[in-house]
Each structure stands twice: as C-alpha cells, then as structure tokens.
C-alpha cells in the first residue's frame, strides 16, 4: 500500500485502491505487483517510459484489461474476478463491472468518440441509455458541459468534422456527463498536433482545480508537475518512485527517474 501521506491525513474517502496488481500478456509480464491509491480530490499522475506499463495499469482499473492477479477497489467496492475456462482472469459479475465502469469517466488517447453520432449525441448517449437519465435533462446537462469545454457551437457536428483538440475536449465532456466518481485519462494529448495540446490541457487543469479525482497517464511532465497532487513513476512494471510532484521532479532519488526526467526536458 502506498497512500500519499498528505491525503491520508486529510481523511478523504478512498476512490481507487489497487493492491499488488499483476498483468501478464502471455509470457510478457507487464505489471509486476503495483499498488496505488487515490482519495477523493487526488490528482494522480502516472509517468514512465514507453512499455513501463502505465497505460495497462490505468486500463486495469475499469477492466478494459483484466488483471492477472491483485485487488482493485473502486469506491470501496472490490471488483470480483474469476478464472475462465482458459485460465484467464475475467470479471466474475458482468453487472458489477458495468456498474463500476459507468462511474469512471475514461478519456482515451485517440478520443474514440462514436463516429455515427453528433457531438451532443455522444455526450448524452451514456447518461440516457446506461444511467437512465431523462433525455431532455441529459441534453441540458450536455449543453452546459459543451459550453464549458468551449464546444457549444459544435453541438450538432459529427466527430470526423472536428479537429483532434475539439474531439478530445468533446470526449472529456462525454466523460463528465456521467458525473464520474473518478476521471481516467490515458495519454489524452499524445495523439494531438502540438498546437492543439494546450487547449486540452487547459480543460484538464480546470477539472483539477475544482477538486475532481483524476488518474492521469501522461507524457507532459510540466503539466503533471503543475496539476498532480501525487506522482507515480513506473519503470518496467514496478513503481520505481512516487511522491508529491515537488519531490519527484525537484529532488528525485532514483537514478532511473533522474535520467528519465533529464531526457524529457
């Protein structure tokens, strides 16, 4: 267990708790026992080189990848896992995992907006069809969210007719529309042209400001340093070092982390 000490003292409820998480893809051991915890209001940034397992770690939280072993608790509820007939670990209860997923707002590297729906349809899709919110209420909420991410005028536009930055901001609105307990960001700016990165980071920074609980896998070190309350450096499937951003970026202890940070800058 590795709670970030500052938050542990504040006594906020634990939103995400991961213990001894292992993930194997065949013979490839990607995560080798990672423990992580995020309390309400935490912004946890996961950094690390390519192949360090940071995206896999994030994707295990909502079982987009099924962990090979370990414990995952979301809002204090442990995800029930079982072995299937091939010996792979899979969620034991489909309804449980669907319920947990509908509380986690995932933002993907490649936006993944649904291409056959307009932007507003994308945003109301999950509230209306999964969460059972009334359509006109969902539309009102969605319009407010689109306004907030600066896309009110793109309401009826299909994703393919928007820039990457606009699509990603729309995807963030889609995630916010489910009123998520935790936001999960999987390298949200890695697929964007450099000049579009800023507009997306600004939206994410605003969310951090208002105290949203977020877990963020990112390559934007400067950004991680500014918004994160806790930084985790993954190396080769293990947490090499973690702590508050000032410590990780200002006074790294591990040689590898020092090297990693100096390579980035």
């Amino acid at each position: 267990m590795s709670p970030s000490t500052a938050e542990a003292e504040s006594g906020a409820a634990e939103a995400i708790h991961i213990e001894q998480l292992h993930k194997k893809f065949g013979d490839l051991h990607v995560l080798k026992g990672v423990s992580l915890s995020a309390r309400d209001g935490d912004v946890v940034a996961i950094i690390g080189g390519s192949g360090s397992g940071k995206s896999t770690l994030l994707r295990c939280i909502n079982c987009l990848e099924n962990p090979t072993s370990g414990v995952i608790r979301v809002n204090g509820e442990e995800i029930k896992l079982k072995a299937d007939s091939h010996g792979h670990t899979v969620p034991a209860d489909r309804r449980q995992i669907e319920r947990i997923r509908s509380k986690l707002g995932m933002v993907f590297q490649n936006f993944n907006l649904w291409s056959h729906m307009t932007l507003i349809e994308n945003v109301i899709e999950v509230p209306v069809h999964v969460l059972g919110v009334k359509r006109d209420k969902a539309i009102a909420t969605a319009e407010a969210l689109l306004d907030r991410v600066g896309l009110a005028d793109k309401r009826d536009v299909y994703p393919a007719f928007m820039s990457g930055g606009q699509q990603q901001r729309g995807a963030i609105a889609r995630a916010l529309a489910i009123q998520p307990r935790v936001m999960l960001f999987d390298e949200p700016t890695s697929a964007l042209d450099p000049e579009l990165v800023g507009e997306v980071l600004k939206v994410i920074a605003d969310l951090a400001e208002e105290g949203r609980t977020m877990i963020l896998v990112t390559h934007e070190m400067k950004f991680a340093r500014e918004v994160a309350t806790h930084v985790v450096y993954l190396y080769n499937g293990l947490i090499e070092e973690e702590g508050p951003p000032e410590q990780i970026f200002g006074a790294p202890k591990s040689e590898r982390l020092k090297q990693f940070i100096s390579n980035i800058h």
Partner: protein
Amino acid sequence: MLRGLFNSVQIAVGAFGIGLLIGTGGAYGKLYGGPVMRDLLEVYTTIVRAVPELVLILLLYFAGTDLINRVLEAMGYARIDVNGLVAGIWVLAFVQGAYATEVIRGAILSVPQGQIEAARAYGMSPGMMLRRITLPAMLPFAIPGLANLWLIATKDTALLAIVGFNELTQETRTAAGQTKAYFTFFMAAGALYLALTLVSNVIIARIERWSRRGTPSVAGGGR
C-alpha cells in the same frame, strides 16, 4: 406479370430481411462465439456459398418440405402443404444469410476498435453495445456489400420458377407460352427487373448517404 413481380418483390424482401438477421447473428457468432459455434458457422457459410443456388433451392425446397412432413408425421400430425411463398422466402433467406454473415463480419471488423472499447469503458451491456454502437457504426462499411446482396436476392427469385412458384419469370413463361409472343414478354420481364434495380439503386443511395453521415466524403467537401 405484375402479380409475378409483386410475388418476386415479396420473396426478395422477406429473404433479404431474414438473411440480414441470420447474417448479423452469424457474424456475431463467428467473431465472438465459442469454438463449436464458429466451426458450425464456418461449415454453413462454406457449404452454402460453394453449392450453386439452383441446387440448394431444389435441395432445400423438396428435401426441406419432405423433412418437415416426415417430422410432423412422426409426431402424429397430418402432412401439410408447404406454402410456396413461405418456402421460397426461407430457402433464399438461408442462402442470403451465408453471404450476409461474411459481409457483416467484415464490416464489424472495419469499425475502429476504440469506439467499441469506449462503449465497454462506459458500462454498456453487450446487447446495448450491439444495438447502439457496433451495428450503426459498421453500417457504412456493410452497405455496398448488402446492396449487392439485395440485387442478387431480387434476381434469385427467378430461380424459384424451377419449383413452380409463380414469381415474375414463371408468370412470363406461362404468358409467353400461351401467346407465343416470347420476345415481347421476356423483354417486358427484363424491363421489370431493370426497373426494380433502378428503384433499388435510388433507395440504396439514400440509405448509404444516411449511414455515412458521420464520415467525410472521400472527394472532400464535407457534408
């Protein structure tokens, strides 16, 4: 002859519709089903697509009705006369389903994986994912192939003439035989098939435009 055309269209619509259902189920089974399901579907699509349709129609029509009656008799019921229209629809649907399975399977594979993943990440159940995301998202990729299948369905109805069903070709043959005006009647039948295709093309073009509403046109220029 118009009555024949009407019968042909009825069969084509029915066969195509049921074929679509078989195809959707088949594609899903092939992509996500267990090994036994996949093997069975592989046998189905391979055999149906390998054997000439005429042979299949004769086989399924005569052997099929015979089989149904034997089963009925074995269970103690009286024999029934299988309605030509219903039998025609099912036989062609069985054939169409095999082709539709492959068309839809390919279309589902063309849907960007991320969109399906997003649906999973937001807690959609498999059924909802199919209805709300996978099927509408695969449609633009499936329409050209399905349009072909529809046109083939309209013309395959002519094969049912062989089992004595009064669709367009059979009606034409009867009329031509009685009047000896073969050329006139068969030209007229050809014109009716052509008209059916032209009308279909207009409708298909509309459906295709609608299904591609979220896709920029290849030629550029947006919506």
